[in-house]
């Protein structure tokens, strides 16, 4: 890796390319699923290659290849320059990179037990045991147990002199119990839906989940859901569990604070943002109990790293403080628009992709509430858990979420289960209705390994810290 990166930087300097960088990435993944007592799938993938990004006359060019030879690197550098020159023919505004101190450093994410050193037999044994417990519940039609491991080695070098080597290890897994009866389908998951929860940790993270220990409860809740009544509609007090709140933060805070969206750079696909550059320090985003940071240094977060893919060190930045909007996620290209330098959020999903502004760990900071007290203070409300569906408009204002399960709250106590709960709102109004966030005891990191953005499409791993929180007067139950 190192030799090819050094050669590429030397070549770009010799060709007097104003700015250039190279990222060499070697990545591997393993995915295991056990379904209804049998192995559904065990797959192992390796991907290696490098991408070269150049800025010529204020225009970007990028080329990448899986062939890691010096000859191919030379061709790819030339191709990136040709592409940049073509970009320059349709250019209303030249790119100006904000300054950054070139870093010579390395980083390894925390990992006690390398997940690729754990025998597949052991992983299958654990998943099969959990699966057996799920399947023991008669109402469970489909029992699924998942485990995934990721390892990424990347080397970044730039013509400015940066040279960064990183190794990031990630793990995750979960359970899903599906009950199907009379044309009805209900799913209950643990610890989160869509294959579980994920972290920049080693296999110790999988062991800490205690999938088997949670399987019986998950199966029982699936059985409850298949016979549960429909969640009633109306305006209600809501308590959202941490997993659902993580996605609420993701969609209604994480994406709108991406400065590339704000500046219109994603308008052709995912959309823009309701935020404007001059909203910083002025816009009320939520109530006074809403405090949000973007923290790429949070231990174990799925958006945790040492340096972004522009060589900028990982940072912790204020996003919302006591309800007031404080800052965007930025890059070297965009930060100048808000009079700042990059806060280090540019990441690519592989060697073949350009870095984009991506969420790091966008965390709702813990408050001081206790979950039991939060529930006890509600006369008539609902507690919703675990995301089932999500949708939000292209400026990130009108959202609608569905959850796997709702519990009625009546006179301060959790009661019966409802199926198909949904809620909807407008982003700043919704966050303004938040009157309590649970404390550190209830707070945990949630990993989202499937954050889509960009063209060609990229999938990022990002994190969200969240504890259960309460929202007043929310519209619930939009379903035909």
């Amino acid at each position, binding site marked *: 890796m190192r030799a090819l990166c050094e050669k590429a930087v030397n070549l770009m300097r010799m060709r007097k390319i104003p700015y250039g960088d190279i990222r060499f990435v070697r990545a591997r993944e393993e995915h295991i699923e056990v379904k209804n007592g049998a192995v559904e799938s065990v797959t192992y993938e390796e991907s*290696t290659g490098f991408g070269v990004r150049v800025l010529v006359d204020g225009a970007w060019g990028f080329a990448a290849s899986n062939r890691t030879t010096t000859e191919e690197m030379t061709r790819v550098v030339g191709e990136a320059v040709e*592409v*940049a020159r073509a970009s320059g023919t349709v250019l209303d505004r030249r790119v100006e990179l904000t300054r950054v101190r070139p870093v010579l450093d390395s980083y390894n994410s925390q990992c006690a037990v390398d997940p690729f050193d754990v025998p597949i037999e052991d992983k299958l044994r654990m998943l099969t045991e959990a699966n057996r417990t799920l399947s023991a519940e008669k109402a469970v039609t489909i029992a699924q147990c998942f485990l995934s491991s990721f390892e990424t080695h990347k080397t970044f070098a730039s013509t400015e002199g940066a040279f960064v080597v990183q190794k990031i290890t990630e793990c995750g897994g979960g359970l899903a119990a599906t009950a199907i009866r009379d044309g009805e*389908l209900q799913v209950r998951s643990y610890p989160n839906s869509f294959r579980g929860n994920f972290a920049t940790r080693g296999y110790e993270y999988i062991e800490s989940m205690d999938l088997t220990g949670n399987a019986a409860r998950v199966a029982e809740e699936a059985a409850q859901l298949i016979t549960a009544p429909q969640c009633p509609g109306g305006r209600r007090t809501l308590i959202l569990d941490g997993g659902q709140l993580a996605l609420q933060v993701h969609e209604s805070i994480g994406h709108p604070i991406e400065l590339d969206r704000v500046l219109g750079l*994603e308008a*052709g696909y995912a959309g823009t943002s309701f935020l404007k550059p001059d909203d910083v320090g002025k816009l009320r985003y939520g109530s006074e109990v809403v405090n949000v940071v973007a923290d790429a240094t949070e231990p174990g977060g799925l958006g945790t790293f040492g340096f972004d893919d522009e060589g900028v060190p990982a940072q912790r930045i204020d996003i919302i403080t006591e309800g007031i909007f404080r800052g965007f996620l930025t890059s070297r290209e965009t930060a100048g628009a808000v009079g700042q330098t990059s806060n280090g959020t540019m990441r690519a999903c592989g060697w*073949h992709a350009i870095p984009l502004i991506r969420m790091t760990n966008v965390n709702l900071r813990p408050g001081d509430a206790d979950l039991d007290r939060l529930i006890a203070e509600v006369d008539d409300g609902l507690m919703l858990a675990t995301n089932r569906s999500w949708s939000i*408009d292209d400026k990130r204002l009108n959202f609608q979420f569905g959850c796997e399960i709702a519990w009625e709250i009546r006179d301060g106590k959790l009661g019966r289960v409802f199926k198909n709960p949904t809620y909807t709102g407008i982003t700043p109004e919704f966050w303004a209705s938040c009157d309590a966030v649970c404390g550190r005891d209830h707070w945990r990191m949630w990993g989202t390994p499937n954050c889509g953005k960009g063209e060609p499409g990229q999938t990022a791993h990002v994190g969200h810290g969240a504890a259960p929180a309460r929202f007043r007067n929310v519209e619930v139950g939009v*379903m035909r």
Partner: protein
Amino acid sequence: MIEKERVFELAGGLIEDSPADDTEVFFHESRGHLTRFANNTIHQNVSVTNAEVLIRVAFGRKVGVASSNTLSDAKRALEQACEIARVSNDSADYAGLPEPQPVQEVNTFDEATAVCDAMTRAARVKNVVEAAKAVDAVAAGALSTGTGLSGIVNSRGVRVAHAGTHVGLNIVMMKAGGSGTTSLKGWKLADIDEGPAAKHVAERAVKTCDPQELDPGEYVVVLEPQAVGVLVAYLAYVGFGGKAYHEKRSFMSGKLGLRVTGPLITVTDDALDPAGIPVPFDYEGVPKKKVTLIKKGIAAGVCYDTATAAAEHTESTGHALPSGSTMGPFPLNLFMTGGDATLDQMISSTVKGLLVCNFHYVNVAERMKTVLTGMTRFGVFLIRDGRIAHPVKNLRFTQSVLEAFDTTSAVTSDRQLVGGLGGGMLVPGMKCDVFNFTGKTEF
């Protein structure tokens, strides 16, 4: 690009070396280019070269899958797949590898598209940007071109390969609260004419300026093809795959032969139809077969790969996804049959309703009932007394697709090839007499 014979040689060598009972090698080489623009500027521009082998082996019913994009390491990927299979438990679904069958040759390779360079793409983007500037709009979007060669060889004698080119253009324009979009897809750059497309989008961006607020509720809707394409894609996602059908997760489960929509709805998957982007075989090397999914409102069939076909005691229809995918077979080349109406006729026959140009960020709210939720985007107009009254602000819908299609009262004869799934979808516009909008936004 690598020669097909070289692919067969490489894959054949791996199969010869394999100790497994069954071995399948999928090879894919690609050159992809994408020129992306926003704020009337090319801001991202990429060219990527890649090649990978995906190997599936089985010892009895113990299956392992491994892939690598370092071709010199293909042998190691084979060893990895074998190692996985050896330590694995039996797969419940594995039904062996398919036997060889004759595959119809299709031509989707265009030399001019294959050699299209960054300057050529930029020149076309410039035409789009100039059309936007002409109406004081801001353009965004992407133009992509590329080549791909896929080959599949297995130990039962399957030996197929296909090389193709692809091109896609999506255009967005924005102006004073208004916006418009279109997407064009194909395999020949010469078939993509950005001029008229950009002009159409520019006109739409102008016409949608200063939208007015409208209360949500039930409306008659006239859906343009891009909006219909979104609904059809999600219908496929929740219901047209053989695995979902077999596991009773599909709205089609137990409904074959029964009415699921109104009689104007016919949906097929046909990867060989030249009106789409033809593909000769699936990811197992099984020839593509035409499948009628819904015929005049009646649930008619679902698509299968080898495993799900065995489970349902039928034959694969050639709809396998890459090995290792747990999604099961999927229709990637959808067609909705056109009717005899025009969009203008649909509008003129509507007393009060909405013309919806496209949807945004749609998701499944309730799978078995095909209830989706999502937003409108790139233009919604109020129709009053048979005429477009004015643009309206975007609305959220929460609606069962099957129920909407049950109220379909007209379908256009014109169809548009839209993106969304692998090979694009050829879909018409349609009028639905009931469509439920459940929320609104601020723009």
